[in-house]
């Protein structure tokens, strides 16, 4: 484990985490969450858990982002009430 690489990725993870909850647009939040998952995948790979990294890349960054986007497309700009 290289600590410089680790620090950089962890910083980006925190930035993505804060960004995903502060950004107003839901679609951008979904995409930032995908980036968060991908950075976590890098972290798992650095720690040697390749199977977990694979799962994180396919489920977290791949399918769950698509499902989030699909859910966001069914929302409206303004609430009805």
């Amino acid at each position, binding site marked *: *484990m290289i600590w410089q690489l680790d620090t950089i990725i962890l910083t980006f993870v925190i930035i993505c985490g804060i960004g995903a909850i502060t950004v107003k647009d839901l679609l951008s939040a979904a995409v930032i969450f995908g980036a968060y998952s991908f950075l976590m995948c890098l972290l798992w790979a650095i*720690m040697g858990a*390749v*199977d977990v*990294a*694979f*799962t994180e890349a*396919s*489920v977290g960054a*791949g*399918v769950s982002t*698509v*499902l989030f*986007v*699909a*859910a966001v*497309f*069914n929302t409206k700009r303004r609430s009805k009430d």
Partner: protein
Amino acid sequence: MKVFGLLAVILCGSLLLYSTGDFPDWGDKDSPANTYLSPHYITKSLEETAVPNMVTAVLADYRGYDTMFETTVIFSAGLACFFLLRISNKKEKKRTFYRHIATGIILHIKEGGKIPEDTSKFTQIDSQWTPNDLIIKVTCRMIIPFIQLFGLYVIAHGHHSPGGGFQGGVILGASMILFAISHDLRTTRKRISEKTAAILSTTGVLIYAGTGLLCMLFGAVFLDYSALAWLLGSDPIMARSHGMLMVEIGVGMAVMFVMIWIYYNISSAGKQEEGL
């Protein structure tokens, strides 16, 4: 209220950060988990199961019962999406937009208008936003077979390299979701209907549980694949390896079709008429 929430978050966070100090170091060989259980897996799993990737050996064999219920959890997620979102669309059939295939002209059919029947000349399109983009369709059609081949490789080669049923199943499901995004939901439902997705995801879970029951039938405990040696025509150690493959195929099937099923229900808000 916001201040209270912030205080609770800070309190919980600092407690968690404080308690991580008591964890053993990363890769510490004297930590409780690494003193008796991990060495057994690391040194013995190859000779006991003939599977080089010990993660697969632990997931599918030593901890097979856990993985079975993980598969069940995924299946329950698909079932929950179905029960929460699915709406019957028998009553309202608003088929209003059609595209003439040869010319690309879009017809908007008003209420009471005649709906074109000849489907080889006209194709029904979504009412919101449907670009007829040839480049996207052709590119996705060429990529999808390779994605599916990679998914099958990940499932079948999980014994030797990272991967397995979950990852391969997700990749296979994602390939069909890519097809649904590049074409539309109706075309995808002609390939894999909702009924097929539901039945095959159930079959995946049943393959897993059935393998376990088969082991019981041959006189061993649940999910002890070495009992299948006679059935598979190999020695008990290779039988454990083959039994894992059977189980991984079940997991892959369940995960793939549950992903497709969830996508159908979420992208169309349960109506399954018009998707993304």
